[in-house]
């Protein structure tokens, strides 16, 4: 079945604009406190446990969680579901890293500060290229998912829906910086959790686990098999992808810097625990497609399709579309705003101040930050106009981020390293991982990229190591 247009176009516009106005007003309200660059970029380094855990969890619940997790379950079965859930280990493991980050860089602002301090200008440049490519790719996938969702649910033309979502997120990030991002994330995380639990409950009401098992055994037996090659590979690949994404990206580093020192590790651990069941629930919804009689014609929409069908069976009619749109819009907005803020911080701190050697006085900060946010969002909007295949775009970047796992760990915990060898490992890992992604199997990119980079980093500990810098220049 193709996803039925269950909302009128006017209702779709009204929901997104209504939520958008709410986020913008809250952004302006919270943004009043962002008077300095540290306030705007790091929310005054004073974020507590509940807001910290909520923002980390909400940011990690992206459109990819709500749309790709069901897709993985539908294609790869039970292992696929667990493979997506393994991305929570990235958040859990970032807890001890956050502790070390705050000790090593008490005045740090971006992940770029760390790479420049530990690996010099070359390592910093390699990091910037990888992280900017990845962050824009991630942003593009969410803009595409948003546009497709509004088109499917409310018949809003793709380009208009995608633009609407981007404009809303840009506006409140512009007004409030990280204060607005973290504040809205808290509300969005509550909406996402309640929405997914509600939809999962409705699905369970209409389809018990034994019926799903019976149907899968008969019609899709490989989804229950222990030995399903692509699914098994997806576990390690997704886990390493998650490690690489969380450990390198400024979205997470900026939160580590923004939280109170003792709060950061607890908040990341708690967010990982809270996030783990979400892809499992979203995946189970997809596995119920067959038993519920849903014919899937586009696997990337299997989650919303089954959810809409189940909510329809519960007699919710067009209200089903409202629930799905609100939950998915929140999951997209909570990640788009975080990426906009964190990536524009990189442009301000690492490119404008670091590379272009510009002095950033308080009067110039807001215009420069606003320009950065607009540049990042405009680039993503332009690329998203293409409407690429969302999961293919994202997974192709897995090799890049996984190649940064070991350089981050070694740079944080080890005192002596051969930095040029580590940088060579990052570059070789990216090339080898991309090659395997395209030539061997989709779920080998992050796995091979991470493995190659690990070998180089371990070698760098023993082959002509030198003391690492311990202060920022």
């Amino acid at each position: 079945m193709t996803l039925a247009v269950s909302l009128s176009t006017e209702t779709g516009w009204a929901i997104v604009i209504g939520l958008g106005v709410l986020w913008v007003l809250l952004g302006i309200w919270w943004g009043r406190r962002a008077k300095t660059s540290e306030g705007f970029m790091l929310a005054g380094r004073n974020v507590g446990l509940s807001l910290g855990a909520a923002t980390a969890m909400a940011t990690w619940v992206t459109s990819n969680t709500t749309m790709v997790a069901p897709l993985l379950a539908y294609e790869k079965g039970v292992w696929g579901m667990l493979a997506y859930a393994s991305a929570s280990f990235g958040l859990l493991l970032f807890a001890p890293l956050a502790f070390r980050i705050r000790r090593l860089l008490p005045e740090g602002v971006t992940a770029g500060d760390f790479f420049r301090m530990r690996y010099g200008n070359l390592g910093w440049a390699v990091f910037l290229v990888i992280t900017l490519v990845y962050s824009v790719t991630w942003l593009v996938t969410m803009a595409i998912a948003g546009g497709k969702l509004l088109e499917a649910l409310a018949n809003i033309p793709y380009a208009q829906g995608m633009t609407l979502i981007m404009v809303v997120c840009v506006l409140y990030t512009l007004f409030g910086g990280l204060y607005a991002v973290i504040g809205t994330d808290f509300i969005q995380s509550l909406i996402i959790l309640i929405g997914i639990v509600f939809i999962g409950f409705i699905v369970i009401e209409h389809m018990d686990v034994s019926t799903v098992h019976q149907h899968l055994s008969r019609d899709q037996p490989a989804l229950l098999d222990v030995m399903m090659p692509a699914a098994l590979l997806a576990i390690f690949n997704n886990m390493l992808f998650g490690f690489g994404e969380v450990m390198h990206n400024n979205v997470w580093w900026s939160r580590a810097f923004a939280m109170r020192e003792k709060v950061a590790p607890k908040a990341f651990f708690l967010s990982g625990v809270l996030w783990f069941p979400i892809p499992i629930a979203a995946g189970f919804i997809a596995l119920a497609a067959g038993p519920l009689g849903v014919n899937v014609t586009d696997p990337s929409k299997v989650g919303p399709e089954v959810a809409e069908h189940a909510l329809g069976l519960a007699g919710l009619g067009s209200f089903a579309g409202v629930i799905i749109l609100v939950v998915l819009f929140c999951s997209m907005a909570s990640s788009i705003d975080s990426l906009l803020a964190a990536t524009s911080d990189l442009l301000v701190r690492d490119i404008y101040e670091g590379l272009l050697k510009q002095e950033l006085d308080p009067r110039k900060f807001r215009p420069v930050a606003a320009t950065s946010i607009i540049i990042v969002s405009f680039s993503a909007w332009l690329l998203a106009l293409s409407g690429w295949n969302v999961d293919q775009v994202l997974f192709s970047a897995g090799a890049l981020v996984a190649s940064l796992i070991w350089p981050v760990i070694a740079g944080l915990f080890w005192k002596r390293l051969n930095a040029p060898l580590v940088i060579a490992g990052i570059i070789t890992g990216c090339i080898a991982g991309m090659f395997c992604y395209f030539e061997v199997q989709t779920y080998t990119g992050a796995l091979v990229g991470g493995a190659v980079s690990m070998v180089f980093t371990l070698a760098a500990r023993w082959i002509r190591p030198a003391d690492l810098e311990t202060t920022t220049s």
Partner: protein
Amino acid sequence: MPDEVELLEFDDRASAITFRLEQSSTPDFSDPKLRYEGPDPASVLTGLREGQYHFRVRAIDSEDQPGAWSEPLVLHVEFMAPGQLAFLLVVGGVVACSTIAAIITGFLKNR
């Protein structure tokens, strides 16, 4: 079929209101299994084990008259070679475990 998913698209005839898609393990469809019946002109297949599968589809018009069966489509499902899979899984396991171990030991030494 490297990613264990296949999209079957049918000829979307204007007169057809229903499509009937059947699957069989034999070319003569002696053991047909109804895979889908409904108005959608496509169906995504996942969860097939290694082997050869045969599919055919026919349209049913508004007067409930079935059309002729399509030419059968043969789908051959083949997974990655066991040796290659085992190698990649071992590499994945070693990298994942080493990463977790490095973070825990690093944290314990530096806290």
